[in-house]
């Protein structure tokens, strides 16, 4: 049976000396997907991306792209584009020449070259900047030049390293829209690396959460956000109340505590976002150690027999003072069941 995957990593392992950065990673990506590699620094996401680009050679394992084994193919012959975090524009060349760089190496000249570069620059809205040097552009413009420079090569896969991290909030939204548009219009398979779960959730079709050189969980943004599979993923996407589960009881600082309701089969832990904690009713009681106002809501930090609990209440409700005793419930049916509790 043929592999339906467009890009696949099979048992990919990369080591620097004794340090294993990526450990037997398996990953399949379909053509035209927009994938986020999400994880904290040192999780191996950047190493994985550089291996796909051909800038690092794996110690073992294979990389296949479009039906071809490219594990040993040079980075200059892979048809993989990369938009660097620093953009890596050539400082001595104009915007036009930056975008033309790869096309010239392909042998394009004259009218062909001109029109390809023009349309590349047009697609990122920088036609009028073609004569400028990179240093004369803003960060956002530089990034769009880098994007155009990669896209005019019509890569099979476009990799982006932390594409939004160097931009301010307004540009971030703009670039996010831009990337989605480019992906939609060209159908290019895109993989971007990020440590920001918000970026991954907003942009990706599928998120690959990485930890310690391996895949922790793969899923759609909804799946990752609502049903994190492990304690690490739950913590990473904002579940702040996480407990190990043993024999139907929560394992807390004060020992096992029984809860109402039946946790799903196979769950080794349960996790609640602050908003999932019900306040002013329920079997538990805690005292308010901290309150912070967060716009539409108010966040409470409670000292409880279970340990510290973070809860959230509508900001229109009257505020509870420090030291006040509050009842609360951890509804099992709302909790995310964790399959792994590593």
């Amino acid at each position, binding site marked *: 049976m043929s592999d339906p995957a467009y890009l696949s990593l099979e048992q990919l392992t990369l080591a620097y000396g004794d340090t294993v950065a990526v450990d037997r990673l398996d990953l399949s990506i379909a053509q035209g997907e927009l994938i986020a590699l999400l994880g904290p620094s040192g999780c191996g996401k950047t190493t994985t991306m550089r291996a796909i680009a051909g*800038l690092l050679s794996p110690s073992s394992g294979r990389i296949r792209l479009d039906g071809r084994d490219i594990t040993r193919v040079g980075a*200059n*012959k892979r048809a993989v584009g*990369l938009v660097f975090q*620093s953009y*890596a*524009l050539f400082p001595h060349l104009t915007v036009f020449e930056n975008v033309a760089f790869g096309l010239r190496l392909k042998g394009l000249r004259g009218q062909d070259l001109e029109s390809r570069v023009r349309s590349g620059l047009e697609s990122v809205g920088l036609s009028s900047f073609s004569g400028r040097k990179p240093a004369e552009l803003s960060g956002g413009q530089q990034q769009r030049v880098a994007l155009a420079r990669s896209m005019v*090569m019509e890569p099979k896969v476009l990799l982006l390293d932390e594409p939004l991290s160097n931009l301010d909030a307004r540009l971030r939204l703009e670039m996010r829209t831009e990337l989605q548009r480019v992906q939609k219009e060209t159908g290019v398979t895109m993989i971007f690396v990020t440590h920001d779960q918000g970026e991954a959730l907003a942009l990706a079709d599928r998120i690959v959460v990485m930890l310690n050189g391996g895949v922790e969980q793969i899923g759609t943004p909804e799946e990752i956000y609502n049903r994190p599979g492990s304690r690490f993923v739950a913590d990473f996407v904002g579940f702040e109340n996480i407990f190990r589960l043993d024999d139907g009881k929560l394992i807390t600082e004060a020992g096992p505590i029984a809860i109402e309701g039946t946790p799903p089969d196979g769950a080794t832990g349960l996790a609640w976002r602050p908003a999932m904690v019900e306040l002013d009713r329920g079997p538990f009681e805690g005292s308010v150690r901290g309150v912070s106002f967060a716009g539409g809501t108010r966040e409470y930090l409670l000292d409880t027999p279970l340990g510290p609990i973070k809860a959230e209440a509508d900001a229109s409700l009257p505020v509870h003072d420090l030291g006040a005793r509050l009842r609360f419930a951890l509804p099992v049916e709302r909790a995310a069941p964790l399959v792994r509790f590593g």
Partner: protein
Amino acid sequence: MTSSLTRSVVLALLLLFLVGPFIVIIAASFSGGDTLAFPPQGFSLQWVVKVFMVQSFRSSFALSMFLAVFATFAALVLGIPASYALARYRIPFGETVRTVVSSPIIVPGIIVGLALLRYLVVPFRIDVILALFLAHTALVLPYAVRVVSASLDNLRSDIEEAAVLLGSSRLGAFFRVVMPNIRGGILAAFILGFVTSFNQVPVSLFLSGPGVQTLPIDMLGYMERTYDPSVAALSSLLAFMSIGIVFLAERFIGFSRYV
């Protein structure tokens, strides 16, 4: 008030100390008398004219020019790849290599000259010009490596990776995106190397042979024989040449950024 006055006086003395000898030499160049003296006796251009008449000055100038250009060129041909390797790769004993390459700056020229004479020129019977060329290359190499390394350190290495991902080979990336961006550093290294080689005395002193002398050595010899102001005139001309080169370099590449 007093402190700013003190400062002005110290500054003035310092400037005088730096520029004073130069003024003396220039003044002596245009002397009307026939011995090297300050203050000059009268004014004439005869010594400036004489510089161009002395046959040995012409040939030693040509040799110094030849050495400065080719030794610097050779030092760059060796030094650019060396700097690149030191900057981009983790080389075993990289720091040691850097130190060894820099050693001709630290070791007194007289020792370098003696060592080269004793262990290179005498046992291998190397031609004087070749010996001078090799010695000057070694002397210029530290400057080449140092200045080019500084340029490379300021250049992000990811532009090379970007070039490779756009289809260039590694070597192609070096010539297409590294070289153009360190051009200023290379030119600065060339000028620094040129001036270093051209003004080199101690090493050349050991290696110069009969009839084959670099300009500074020739000038020393000339002064021992003839105490007329033509050496002053020649010194002034050389000083203006150096000033001219550095001025143009500053104007076009911002020389002082690199050294």
